[in-house]
């Protein structure tokens, strides 16, 4: 009986520790969202999908429809923008480190230029983009965008094709109007 009790205590301890450490993005967001001059917004996936689903009813444009279809793959969005030196640079750097060590996210791109630093981190499993986090430091400004998604490369390709179709249609239309203008009858 004692052994079972010990095992349960240890198990409970592990669960509590795991919950306490949690998701670095969530912890960071909760810590800084209420600071002055910090703009924050968190859209749960259900809300995003419902809004996009409703918007699709009223949209007839193919390109916009493809864009919305892509947006429906987003499971949740968190945005944190600091315009008043509220989030220390060190905290941002610690977040990047935690994302790598705790959330198995890897740096996809990082760019540093003129004191500005932007890093895009992602969690990609197979062909699915599960999480994307963009962190940007500028002078006195900090921006974090975290997106959970079910996005696949084929979805991006579908959007590109839709955009291309539209561009081609525009070009054809332009050519036709030019032809009409240049025709001797005109």
């Amino acid at each position, binding site marked *: 009986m004692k052994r079972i009790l010990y095992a349960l205590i240890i198990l409970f301890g592990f669960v509590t520790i795991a919950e306490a450490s949690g998701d670095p993005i969530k912890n960071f967001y909760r810590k800084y969202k209420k600071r002055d001059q910090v703009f924050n917004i968190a859209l749960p996936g259900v809300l995003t999908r419902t809004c996009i689903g409703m918007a699709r009813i009223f949209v007839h444009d193919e390109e916009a429809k493809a864009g919305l279809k892509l947006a429906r793959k987003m499971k949740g969005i968190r945005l944190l923008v600091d315009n008043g030196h509220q989030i220390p640079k060190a905290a941002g750097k610690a977040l990047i480190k935690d994302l790598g060590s705790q959330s198995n996210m890897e740096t*996809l*791109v990082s*760019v540093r230029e003129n004191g500005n630093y932007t890093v895009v981190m992602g969690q*990609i499993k197979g062909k699915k983009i599960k999480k994307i986090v963009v962190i940007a430091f500028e002078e006195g400004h900090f921006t974090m965008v975290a997106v959970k998604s079910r996005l696949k490369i084929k979805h991006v390709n579908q959007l590109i094709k839709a955009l291309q179709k539209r561009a081609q249609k525009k070009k054809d239309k332009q050519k036709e109007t030019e032809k009409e203008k240049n025709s001797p009858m005109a």
Partner: protein
Amino acid sequence: MLFCALFCFLASSARAQNDAINRYFEAQLENEIFTSVYVSPKLIEIVSQIDLQSLDDGDMEDNEAAMIEEVLGQLKGLMLLKTDVEPMTHYKQVLSDFSGLNSGFDLLLSVRDKGNNVKIWTQTATDNTIQELLLLVGGKEEMIMLSLTGNIDLKKISKLAGNVDIDGIDYLDNLDKSQQ
């Protein structure tokens, strides 16, 4: 026995060279006088799956999109460092760090282009494919260090010059000139 020892030495020195590049890059990553760009193999893998040919709105030459797709398919990573603060000092520093280590890197090209010293090194695998290309540019105005890893075809990689907007990549044009 001797062969094994030689192989181990060559393998470790090649790794030491790669480490030297990575170490230098990581050391300067926090240095604010440097512009740095890092593109991970994963991102290149994703971008190479995107249908770039569909993005061609007629501005690209024949097969250009296909060629860029092919080059991206070969690349595994990109690192860039650039500075305009004491460029020659940094150029000489990298050059001495790099030349100090005897490794599997071969100096492919050394030219003066637009008033800058341009050096290109490559590291080849046993099957003669190029696994890494390192470009170093040093002049009065800027120092650029660009490292490309992957399975690199020199004929194709030089085509990136002029098609991709990355500092220093236009110097790869020299590869094309030297081949001619």
